[in-house]
């Protein structure tokens, strides 16, 4: 218990004094997760729109597959990306393994189903009223889709935030394809895993508090957005 309290005390000191190591890891984690989230959003919000606004065979099946993949184990994605970008793999020539880019790629794949799936839910939640109204007022397909997206923007933003929350707190991808290289691919989660194994309680607690704070910011924002959605 004393060790734990002492750990908390040192951890708080580290955060308050702006410990360069702790903050460089936090900053790196943020950069990687934000990059992954932005890329995933740029690709998979449109993908969600394409799926929602098109009628095709097996659409329902596809949507349920996407929803199943919401909780795909992170290590599975890590393994997949490892096999893909390892030198011996099909994308090996890119030399991406054990780099921040590799983590970004893995996290993009990891949160793609969340962003696409929740975008589809957000758009479905709008019903056909908005799209019909937009079309009848003379909108082209793209104008209509943009209008429905804009009408469901809080829910879509929630999808993006949920994706970010998962990206920032995952460890499977970061450890397998990032390699937890000090000063290069070490993220909050991999640093905590290593730190706990080494008995470095205080640093791990400090990193954990930052991670928790990030998760809480995401969750509070999501709640606020959903509240304003209901109006």
């Amino acid at each position, binding site marked *: 218990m004393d060790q734990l309290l002492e750990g908390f005390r*040192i951890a708080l000191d580290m955060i308050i004094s702006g*410990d*360069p*190591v*702790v903050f*460089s*890891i936090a*900053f*790196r984690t943020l950069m990687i997760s934000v*990059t992954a989230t932005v*890329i995933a959003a*740029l*690709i998979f919000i*449109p*993908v969600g729109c*394409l799926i929602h606004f098109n009628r095709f065979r097996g659409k329902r099946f596809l949507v349920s597959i996407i929803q199943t993949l919401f909780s795909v184990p992170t290590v599975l994605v890590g393994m997949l990306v490892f096999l893909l970008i*390892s*030198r*011996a*793999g099909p994308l*090996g020539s*890119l*030399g*991406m*393994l*054990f*780099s*921040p*880019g590799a983590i*970004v*790629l893995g996290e*993009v794949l990891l949160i793609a189903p969340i962003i696409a799936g929740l975008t589809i839910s957000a758009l479905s939640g709008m019903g056909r009223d908005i799209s019909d109204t937009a079309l009848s007022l003379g909108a082209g397909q793209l104008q209509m889709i943009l209008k429905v997206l804009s009408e469901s923007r809080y829910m879509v933003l929630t999808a993006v935030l949920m994706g970010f929350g998962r990206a920032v707190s995952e460890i499977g991808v970061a450890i397998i394809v990032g*390699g*937890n*290289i*000090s*000063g*290069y*691919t*070490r993220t909050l989660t991999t*640093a*905590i895993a*290593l*730190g*706990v*194994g*080494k*008995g*470095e*309680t*205080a*640093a*791990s607690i400090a*990193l954990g508090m930052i991670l928790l704070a990030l998760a809480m910011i995401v969750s509070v924002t999501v709640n606020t957005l959903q509240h304003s959605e209901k109006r």
Partner: protein
Amino acid sequence: MIRYIFSGILIFALLSTACGGQSEPSAEPAMEQTTEIAEDAGNESVPPRASASRLRVATTTSLYDTGLWSYLEPMFEEEYGVELDVLYAGTGKALEWGRRGDVDVITVHSRSREEQFVQEGYGLERVTFAYNYFLIVGSPDDPAGLEGMTPEDAFTTLMQNGEEIFVSRGDDSGTHGKEKAIWTVAGYDYEDVRTSGDWYVEGGSGMGPTLVMADEMSAYTLSDMGTFIAYRSDLDLEPVVDQGDILLNVYSVLEVTSSRNPEMAANLREFLTSETVQELIGNYGVDEYGIQLFTPCAGLDM
């Protein structure tokens, strides 16, 4: 049309992140090494490099957990102007990375597997650079009474008692390989041991975490000397068996044949076996722990 935009975004994303080898302060979450890290953080001004000027070394966890690599890394980087990425893993995984061409250099400790690796053409040459010994460690009261036994007898006793817990690395590492070798010499089939009961625990982690686990469970485990000494102050574990030829633990460096940066890989081998660094390895940790963690042995056949 939209499809082309998507693939454009994807390619842009891959390119921008693949080249994003931004140099950030080396970040080691080690509370007792804060000063060391602060110096390390001073390297921040190193300009961003393309991945070609990075060198990847896969190291066994024992060399990582002792902090030896964190100690040597900045020296090498400064001397050769390269970003050194140190990846820690068990010997098995490190060699597998080498086979796949994902790392340039490997530092591990399992002679037979290293020789096989070289023989198969994955590595250039096995060059030894340091050694120490493995230890069987356990709680100070030594409930199984292993003190003074040979490693083989100690294992036999544990197997026959089937009561005192033994934590195995269980991760295909060099230490794990050594443990299996001891079981074989003691006359057991490792599969039988592994499945013989609850007393035999497979941790599946690196050396440091395995020691922490053994400490929590008041169990015995096999550890390399370096990691044990580096962790000793936080543990309530003592060496119970430290004599026996079989406990010899030799670390060697292997350049990976398929490395895309073979010159720099050779530089790292030369660096580790150079007189200056050999001396540094020999002295590493002496001030802090009062005992030598590694004995330099550059190029010796052992």
